[in-house]
């Protein structure tokens, strides 16, 4: 991340979102909304004095701590943030919301970097290619109350457990229960929100390996009895199976059966499941439950797809042009995808896809020219009366009316022929599929050989 932030040819627009796009490959015009940080990034050094001084310090749930820690209204998201600059949360800041605050942050800042009069701005950039890498969110547990998430304090999700394990996290790297005790038993539940027609049918691909890692860390950091409730262990990857064997040898207890529910009993959390290898129902009391939550397309995926005109598959992820042969292309020329926004995958695969998408974008741009599919529509201006029906019929907005005549943008045209079928005056040619060509085809297909006709 730091390399990207420092690279002279990369301009990072953080705290920003794309709000609109027009154009076509080689000539995209993208509108971006830049939200105000209320901090001048040229002056801010990331020293953190404003963060310490903020009157709301430790009062607001911190996004990075996944609900396990708190921050103030003036904050730096995490110690390795790029750029390492402070930001003021307008949703909570007392001065921005109510106009009343002692502004300790302003007083603490030795460079006068805090600027409450910043406003949102919309900028437009011109680019030749676009790569979508909008990532993933975790399954929303409101549909699955039976696991006690958000109900019992010691039911965590995998990211929250990561924060417990992190030396920079809310517990300084110790695995602790909500009341501060060290757990004597921990259960990791696989496939919560995956591989199920009631949640998502697909496998989220990385949680088996991730959960093995967390179980491994749990054994390292505590002397707890560690269980994993699984359906299958998916460890296809370089050295992945060997790690699974190692975790088994380290003493994690594997129960082959997805957990059905978590209930409190006698101060413990009881995990219920069917152990399919034993053929018996089991109830396992533990101190802490960690849920391996499934992956979902990130929140903004629908909107991003709409803005860029990219299709989504029926699981909600961006649709690649071909599942095997073109996994980083989309059906729109010049727009590529990489990472989990296309489908669940882990870090090595994401990096590989990102490299692929970058290479494809580079190849396109260094060529400087695009090869166009010859199957496109073309208007005969002399026949066009400018009724505009074709404009409405085009799914790709490839036709516009200019000075009373329709004009097809052949870079946007996909050659479907809907406009050709719409035009009553035959003023649009569908190249390679012209009216004459099809009619000749029909004539040839219906042709009755002379001999048959003659044999009266």
């Amino acid at each position, binding site marked *: 991340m730091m390399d990207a932030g420092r690279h002279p040819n990369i301009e990072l627009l953080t705290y920003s979102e794309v709000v609109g796009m027009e154009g076509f490959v080689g000539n995209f015009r993208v509108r971006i909304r830049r939200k105000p940080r209320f901090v001048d990034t040229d002056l801010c050094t990331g020293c953190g004095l404003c963060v310490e001084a903020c009157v709301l310090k430790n009062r607001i749930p911190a996004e990075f701590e996944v609900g396990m820690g708190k921050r103030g209204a003036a904050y730096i998201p995490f110690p390795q943030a790029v750029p390492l600059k402070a930001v003021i949360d307008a949703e909570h800041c007392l001065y921005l919301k109510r106009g009343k605050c002692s502004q300790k942050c302003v007083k603490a800042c030795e460079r006068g970097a805090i600027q409450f009069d910043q406003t949102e701005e919309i900028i437009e950039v011109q680019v030749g290619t676009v790569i979508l890498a909008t990532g993933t969110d975790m399954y929303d547990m409101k549909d699955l109350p039976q696991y006690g998430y958000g109900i019992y304090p010691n039911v965590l999700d995998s990211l929250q457990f990561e924060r417990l394990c992190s030396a920079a996290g809310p517990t300084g790297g110790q695995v602790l229960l909500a009341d501060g005790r060290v757990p004597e038993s921990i259960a990791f539940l696989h496939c919560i929100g995956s591989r199920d027609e009631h949640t998502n049918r697909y496998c989220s691909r990385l949680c088996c390996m991730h959960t093995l890692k967390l179980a491994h860390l749990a054994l390292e950091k505590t002397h707890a009895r560690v269980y994993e409730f699984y359906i299958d262990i998916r460890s296809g990857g370089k050295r992945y199976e060997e790690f699974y064997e190692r975790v088994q040898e380290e003493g994690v207890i594997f129960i082959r059966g997805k957990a059905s529910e978590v209930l409190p009993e006698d101060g413990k959390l009881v995990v219920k499941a069917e152990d399919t290898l034993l053929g018996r129902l089991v109830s396992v009391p533990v101190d802490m439950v960690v849920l391996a939550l499934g992956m979902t397309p990130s929140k903004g995926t629908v909107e991003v797809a709409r803005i860029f005109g990219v299709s989504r598959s029926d699981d909600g992820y961006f649709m690649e042009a071909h599942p095997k042969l073109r996994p980083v292309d989309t059906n729109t020329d010049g727009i590529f995808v990489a990472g989990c926004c296309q489908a669940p995958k882990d870090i090595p695969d994401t990096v590989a896809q990102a490299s692929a998408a970058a290479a494809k974008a580079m190849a396109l741009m260094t060529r400087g020219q695009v090869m166009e599919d010859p199957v496109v529509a073309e208007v005969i201006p002399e026949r066009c009366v400018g009724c505009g029906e074709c404009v409405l019929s085009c799914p790709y907005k490839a036709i516009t009316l200019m000075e009373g005549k329709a004009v097809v943008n052949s870079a946007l045209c996909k050659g479907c022929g809907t406009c050709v079928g719409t035009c009553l005056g035959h003023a649009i040619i569908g190249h390679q599929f012209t009216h*004459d060509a099809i009619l000749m085809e029909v004539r040839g297909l219906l042709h*009755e050989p002379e001999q048959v006709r003659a044999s009266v």
Partner: protein
Amino acid sequence: MLILSPRFDKRRVSEGEILATDSFEPRIVGFLCNWCSYAGADNAGLGRLKYPENIRIVRVRCSGRVAPDLVLRTFQEGADGVMVLGCHFGDCHYVSGNYRTAKRIPMLRKLLEVFGIEPERLRLEWVSASEGQRFAEVVTEFTETIRRLGPLDLHPKRSTIPASGATSETRENAVHA
């Protein structure tokens, strides 16, 4: 010398009249969209499914390409029945072409009677790329429908559509038109 299959009927042409024989074989033209229905027909072939040979398939990119006048000209060229097959709603490779078709073809069916053509001779169906079985069923059923209806009695001299291709649309012709 063409070797004629006994299944093909011999049409008797006398004084501009076309008569049906007992072994009338319908001549059906199907306009299939490249991505769904054409692939579905291919799928039927992969599955070695049997369906009548009467259908002659014309591939178009999208069912939205099929203009009403193309269908009428197809009848005029001698088709006894015309099928237009496209993608199911929501599945169109080109997003919305099939919605256009869904409005056009039923409207055309209503107008067919004006031209002296039974509306049942035009059929619109949605077939996806994996529905080889459905393709075979739909074609079989439509072939039987046309067989029952008999040959289309539409002689070029009698129809109201000009026989010559007055709507050629290459650029040179348009400029000289």
